[in-house]
């Protein structure tokens, strides 16, 4: 260790050592100060002590001008241990051939581009990293590199990334190094593993070291490496291990030791089991998210069809209105896309709910007790709503933006990742379900709704305005359809045919779950989604959907009242 290196090194908190000297005692800092004081005493005339870190940094850079390639490598190594904030960009520029000396004043600059054919280069000051005007190419000399120096530079930059305070930067650096692992980077990783605290980064480094250990060493170290790798889940690790025990065409093995081979085979089995488990979890999650969509599109119908017995074929178009409301809300607040969804949910509830109340008051109330006629009339309404949307918004699909917080993935482990929009749809469905249950079970409106659906005449005798309750119930179911439309706007195209695509599914969910039973709708929709996703790998998406539909048709023949049939007086009057 040279005195210079020590003196150049500021403390981790960024304060220069010289200034902090003597102010604290004990611990690591105290030890450093002792050493410093010792050197300060030994070398009182050393000018470096008086220099600021910037000046020292510039001085080190200046040495690059006339140094030989081995000297340059030494300077780079020294710089890389300096904690000056500009070191990393400067070294990166050096690696990319963007480091220049200005001939007129022998100052070092970074260029924004390494392209020598430009008539003028935009320069950056190496210390402040601010723009430093432009320079003519003939006034600038590039500080050259060769292969050996570039390797040193890469390692130095990787070390920087490895010691970054941001653990995700460290993780990326390890992954980058593992792509082409060599001796210097291995040395760097070994050095790092001792001080690494983040478990994810530590595991990544261990994987890298273990993978490297498979290539050489004694059988014992290879066995240890395999034991460490057996806990990893990644496909590259599995394939790397599989190479060890799979015979090549001429019958020889990549791994000579049979014990290591059998350990590798066992490790691959462990990994495969874990991967199968997580892919099962993933399928289940996909199924639940598809099921959530089904529940969401069906739950409004569970109110209007299930509780009121109204066949509303315009249900899909009420969802479409909700989706278009999202679009309009985004048009109205283009600067706040992030918040637009939160505004769109109540807006869509209102738009679709009001449309539902109008529909109920003007058409459906004349048709109570005539379900087939209701079906036809509401189908007519659905056609008119589709055409209305075509006339207002054109027949083309409208693009609804996805807020940034809804995109992206949640990496659970190496195998299992969950996209946020799928996760949110599950959460959203559960929220809608819970709120709906609370409304039905805990509010005055819910009490009225249940009373009217169970015994209309008695409810009227008790003073409940059954007509008003009908309108409100229908409005509630329609509003929920609008809310479902907001969710659909994030999943599919928003166009005039959006509703049609879901109408059959939503009726099937309600009938399957058992009419008049919200829990049945939830369980029915979720199980339909899961079964669909379970079948998909074997049958393909379309055939899986057909199989589910046919299975449902057959199921309804066996149990015409669905999974959870309504019992008691209400069931008889509903039929």
């Amino acid at each position, binding site marked *: 260790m040279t005195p210079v290196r020590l003196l150049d090194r500021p403390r981790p908190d960024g304060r220069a050592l010289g200034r902090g000297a003597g102010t604290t005692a004990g611990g690591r800092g105290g030890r450093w100060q002792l050493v410093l004081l010792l050197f300060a005493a030994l070398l009182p005339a050393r000018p470096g002590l008086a220099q600021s870190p910037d000046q020292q940094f510039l001085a080190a850079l200046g040495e690059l001008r006339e140094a030989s390639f081995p000297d340059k490598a030494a300077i780079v190594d020294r710089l890389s241990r300096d904690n000056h904030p500009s070191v990393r960009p400067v070294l990166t520029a050096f690696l990319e051939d963007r480091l220049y000396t200005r001939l007129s004043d022998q100052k070092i600059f970074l260029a924004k581009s390494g392209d020598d054919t430009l008539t003028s280069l935009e320069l950056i000051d190496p210390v402040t990293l601010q723009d430093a005007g432009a320079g003519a190419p003939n006034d600038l000399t590039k500080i050259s590199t060769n292969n050996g120096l570039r390797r040193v530079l890469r390692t130095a930059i990787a070390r920087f990334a490895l010691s970054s305070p941001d653990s995700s930067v460290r993780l990326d650096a390890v992954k980058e190094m593992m792509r082409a692992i060599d001796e210097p980077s291995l040395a760097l990783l070994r050095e790092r593993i001792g001080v690494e605290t983040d478990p994810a980064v530590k595991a990544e480094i261990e994987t890298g070291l273990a993978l490297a250990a498979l290539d050489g060493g004694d059988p014992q170290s290879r066995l240890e490496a395999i034991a460490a790798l057996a806990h990893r889940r990644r496909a590259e690790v599995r394939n790397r291990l599989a190479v060890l025990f799979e015979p090549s065409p001429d019958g020889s093995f990549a791994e000579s030791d049979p014990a290591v081979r059998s350990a590798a085979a066992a490790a691959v089995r462990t990994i495969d089991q874990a991967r199968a488990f997580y892919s099962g979890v993933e399928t289940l999650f996909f199924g639940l998210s598809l099921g959530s969509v089904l529940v969401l599109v069906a739950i409004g119908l569970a109110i209007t069809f299930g509780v009121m017995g109204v066949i509303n074929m315009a249900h899909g178009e009420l969802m479409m209105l909700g989706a278009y409301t999202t679009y309009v809300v985004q048009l109205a607040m283009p600067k706040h896309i992030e918040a637009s969804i939160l505004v769109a949910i109540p807006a869509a509830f209102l738009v679709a709910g009001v449309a539902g109340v109008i529909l109920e008051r003007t058409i459906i109330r004349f048709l109570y007790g005539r379900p087939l006629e209701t079906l036809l009339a509401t189908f*007519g309404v659905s056609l*008119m709503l589709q*055409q209305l949307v075509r006339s207002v918004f054109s027949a083309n699909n409208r693009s609804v933006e996805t807020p940034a917080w809804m995109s992206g993935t949640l990496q659970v482990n190496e195998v299992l990742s969950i996209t946020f929009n799928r996760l949110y749809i599950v959460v959203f469905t559960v929220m809608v379900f819970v709120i709906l249950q609370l409304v039905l079970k805990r509010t005055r409106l819910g009490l009225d709704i249940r009373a009217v659906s169970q015994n209309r005449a008695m409810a009227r005798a008790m003073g409940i305005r059954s007509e008003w309750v009908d309108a409100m119930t229908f409005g509630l179911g329609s509003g929920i359809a609008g809310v479902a439309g907001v969710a659909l706007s994030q999943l599919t195209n928003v166009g005039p045919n959006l509703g049609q695509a879901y109408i059959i599914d939503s009726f099937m969910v309600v009938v399957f779950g058992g009419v008049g039973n919200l829990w049945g709708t939830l369980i029915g929709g979720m199980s339909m989604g899961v079964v669909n996703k379970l079948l998909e790998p074997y049958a393909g998406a379309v055939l899986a959907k057909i199989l589910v*539909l046919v299975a449902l048709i*057959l199921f309804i023949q066996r149990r015409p009242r669905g999974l959870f049939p309504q019992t008691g007086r209400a069931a008889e009057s509903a039929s």
Partner: protein
Amino acid sequence: MSSSQPRGLLWSDDRGGTVFLGLLAAVAILVPLLNQAVPASSPLHLSTYVLTLLGKYLCYMMLAIAVDLIWGYAGILSLGHAAFFALGGYGMGMYLMRQIGTRGVYGDPVLPDFMVFLNWTKLPWFWLGFNHFWFALLMMALVPASLAFVFGWLAFRSRVTGVYLSIMTQALSYALMLAFFRNDMGFGGNNGFTDFKELLGFDLQSDRTRVVLLVATAIALGASYRACRLIVSSRAGRVLRAIRDAESRTRFLGYRVESYKLWVFVISAVIAGVAGALYVPQVGIINPSEFAPINSIEVVIWVAMGGRGTLYGAAAGAILVNYAKTYLTGALPEAWLYVLGAMFVLVTVFLPRGLMGLMTAEARAK
């Protein structure tokens, strides 16, 4: 109409049917004459376009009668009858595809073009026999009938009724549509069948063949009407009406409700299938969109518009709505869905017995 006539007689089953059959006969005689015998320069000449359009309408009327038979008389609202129509059409389409022979783009003597395109080397088993017209004819009736039998047997036995049955039929049709959209089903995927050349050796593009097809359709329509009329005026027909009005009571009286419903459902499916089979050579194409649930629902509105439970009313509704559709989609394409939607709403809310009901009511009032 004359008020001197006894009340109800003019629009009694017999008379309405007679008028309908008379009009049908007039079409079957006049159209060939006007198209073939009248020279093209004469204003009375019937163009190929109108000829094809009339043929199409006749097929739709047959489909409407099939739906009215079960909805108007047995109270079974099928929202999947277009599926039977399309299955019949696919049966005819398969025969016509086999007739193309070496005249296809790829010139394969056995395989239709789309199979060559998919690199299939031999005909799937379910295509065998479709080179014979009699076999294809049998299948056009048998396939819809078997589907209706299996579905109806399952549904009526477990007493799936009313709205539930409607939704099930709709799901069935939807599932079939998805299935026929798949290329590996062996039915041409979403392109379906088209580019037909000839039927029984007659060129499908010639007016003469078209006239013959129209007359055949008119005869089939008349025969279907008579067959349905026979059923509904028989004793079984009265049982069906009893089921429509009070299913449980009919069952308690000792009638096997499910058998009556099943057989009338199967017969209706066969009529729909034959209508589809006659439709395909006249329009020259069949593809999976014929299975679309909206098509089935449109048929129901034809019947509701004309007046259900009259048979001829259904036929009248079919031609009225389709004429309006042809006219409006040409003249005011924006307005068509508004009109169709409004028709659904107005007819169900204000005209529960359709236009025929309106006329009967007027006749009664006088």
